[in-house]
């Protein structure tokens, strides 16, 4: 068993330090080392998107990234979306549109949608579907999720929260 490494990184705007084995994925570090269980494990092969986090603003499957690779990068997870008790427009629209049933895919969708809107504040339905194609949902059939992202894009000003 390899010795653990100290990793310095920024998570949701906070500078953090954690210890992990080289073989632990970022997803495992977030969940089991840091106790941040908002990112979910669905497949461990990067096919479902339930573990999606943003790395320097880019949507990444945290199951496909090693914890040690977070060194020096900016990580954003679902736990950092809301500003204190003020929900991000995406979170608010997901609730208003009943865009979640079991909710397990929701953190991943929110992060992918945030990456999309940060980059393209007023996407078309087709652009939304393309950007979210890497996030699987089995409960909703996606309809209400796409509606929520469309509404959030109309609600936000060009500077995302």
């Amino acid at each position, binding site marked *: 068993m390899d010795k653990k490494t100290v990793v310095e990184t920024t998570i949701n705007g906070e500078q953090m330090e954690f210890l992990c084995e080289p073989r632990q994925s970022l997803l495992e570090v977030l969940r089991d080392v840091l106790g941040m269980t908002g990112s979910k494990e669905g497949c461990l092969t990067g096919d479902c998107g339930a573990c999606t986090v943003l790395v320097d603003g880019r949507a990444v499957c945290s199951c496909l990234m090693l914890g040690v690779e977070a060194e020096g990068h900016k990580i954003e997870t679902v736990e950092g979306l809301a500003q204190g008790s003020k929900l991000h427009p995406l979170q608010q629209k997901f609730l208003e549109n009943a865009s979640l049933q079991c909710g397990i895919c929701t*953190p991943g969708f929110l992060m992918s949608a945030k990456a999309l809107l940060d980059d393209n504040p007023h996407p078309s339905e087709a652009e939304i579907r393309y950007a979210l194609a890497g996030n699987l949902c089995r409960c909703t059939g996606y309809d209400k999720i796409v509606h929520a992202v469309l509404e959030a894009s109309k609600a936000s000003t060009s500077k995302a929260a």
Partner: protein
Amino acid sequence: MAATTEGHQFRVIGTRPIRHDGVEKVTGAARYGADYAFPGMLFGRVLRSPHAHAIVKSIKTDKALKLPGVKAIVTGADLPELPDRIEQGGELPINLHHLSCNILARGKAMYDGHAIAAVAATSPHIAEEALRLIEVDYEVLPPVMTVEDAMAPNAPILLPALRNKEDGPDKQTNVAAHIQFKRGDVKEGFAKADYVIEHSFKSAMVHQGYIEPHNAVGIYNSDGHATIYCSTQGSFVVRSLSAAVLGIPEGKIRVVPAEIGGGFGGKTTIYLEPLSVLLSQKTGHPVKLTMNRAEVLRASGPTSGGTIRCKMGATKDGKIVAAEASLAYEAGGFPGSPVPMAAMCILAPYDIPNILVDAYDVVVNRPKTAAYRAPGATNAAFASETIINELAEKCGIDQCEFRIMNGAHEGTPQTAGPPYKRIGMIETVEAIKNSPHYKSKLTGKNRGRGMASGFWFNIGFQSSAMVNIHNDGTASVVTGSVDIGGSRASMAIITAEVLGLDVNDVRPLVADTDSIGYTDVTGGSRTTVATGLAVFEAAQDAVRQLKERAAKLWEKKPEEVEFNNGLLSSKSNGVKPMSIKEIVPRLGRTGGPITGRATINARAVGPAFASTCVDVEVDPETGKVTILRATVAQDAGKAVHPSYVEGQMQGGTVQGIGWALNEEYFYDAKGVLRNSGLLDYRMPTCLDLPMIETCIVEVPAPGHPIGSRGVGEVSIVPPPAAVANAIANAVGVRMTELPMSPGRVLKAILHKEVSAQSSAAAD
């Protein structure tokens, strides 16, 4: 029992409040089973058979036990032997001996992925390493993978002790059961028919596809009590089945349901739960077990593929006079496919005087099947609903009209059971017929439109509920129904409706198996109907008590007190109406706090019907089918929270589309699953789909105070047939095998072209 609600105006029921557990779910704070952690917790992993069919001659664990960090290893030898008997478990009856064998194999591996041993260690990685050090001596046997192979004479026998009623006690067999339903005389019926269509259909094994893998954290206390935290659709089922498998009294186990990341029937049984308790007992620590995705696909409970031969006859004016079907479904490594339900569903939407349905439950070397949203009905409808369209075409009658003409209605006999009470089958077809989608023109090459209908029983069963009135005049409603899709909000809505409160002043909770009375699974489309009924009655019980207290305060009889819109009043003079908030400070001195309670076994539950229309475009060069537009109409009786009803309709439709177009299990010649990941077990992504239009039909269910019908399942039933009918309309080929993946569609198109060419050449 309360009256029906036709014409009743509701205040809260039918509105769309934000769900009470919503904020936790969108902020990542909600705790699903795998999110739980406890001090000193160990991690478990399961060793699984790499062979589809093998005798397990020996299991050596000594090397694995020596690995630093490994704390315990268990095998089937650590579980008690259970009698071969049937219990009610979840939605389908269960043989406890088979269930226990499925949890840890006893001497025989029945499918690729079958659990052989379980390890607990200080990290999941160490547990994984330990699996590789366990030495298992297998004697590999030839696998039997299809119902045809399993039913062939001289097929290898998979379960030596298995017998069925028909063949008797001396015949070994792979057919666990043969069920038959009949009505009238099909020979006579077919003789009257002007058109008879018969086809043989095949469908593949598919998985529920929930995004959250199975999980369980077991904590065994030295006093013999255990607690299980897990994501499940039925905490009481986890309790009773785990207790049975472990050989301990049910009362010694408390199950705390975590939030659940999807189930669709696949989480109404147990896999890891008893193992987590067993390993906790052996180690003295909490033990967390989770499945990875490959294990979920290989070794949880997909639903049956199989074969269906279906034959239907109609007179030329469009009346179906006879129907016959023979279904053989894969049960997996142990008996218990949903073929009996399939047999009861296949002809259910129609009024047919002569029917004969034979159904066979067949053991094969695949995982033991579990319930999947309207179990058995979807593959059955693929057969019947495509033949219905062919008959309609022969008769020159529109596909909707044909179904309306033959549709089941109040008084129509069911395949098994009493005649239908008031149902909404025909109304759902009419909703499709009158929908903007169906009325629109579909233009373009290789494009087609098809529709289909479907039926599901819905179950009632038992639920318990409590409504607590708080000191500030708000309330909480406690049930045992795990919330998979927003049902918590519906419970709050119903309570708020009865108590005259704002829906945000009612807090809904899902309690553990000690804190709330027995409650059957969240499944079978029962939660809003049955648990909703218990909640309704518990709230009414609270109202009754409130009236008694007001009567005491006003020195009147309880019968003189009324409760309307949250206000207690009396017709007789001299009293100022009181709100719940106003009476609450006086509850203490009039007898104490108020908790309304109710327990029910819901009967007279209304069945569900759905009709779905899809437009497709078929690429004639690749066989790829694109869904252009989809509309689903479903009879919900009365939609308590319309957004979540729409959600069930849309979700089921999309699962049905996946089942129709892409999803299937690929096993190789050795019986090893080749697509045990979500890349190759291809479920629909949002890029594959358009918006799903919904039409909630409300034909109130008689005998239910709100008139609600279960909505969770039936929407999955019509889509494969609807898509097949659309493909036929688009490119003139009739698909008889699921999924209708590009390769199969292309083959059918090419075959049609070749046949057309050869008949042209022959002229």
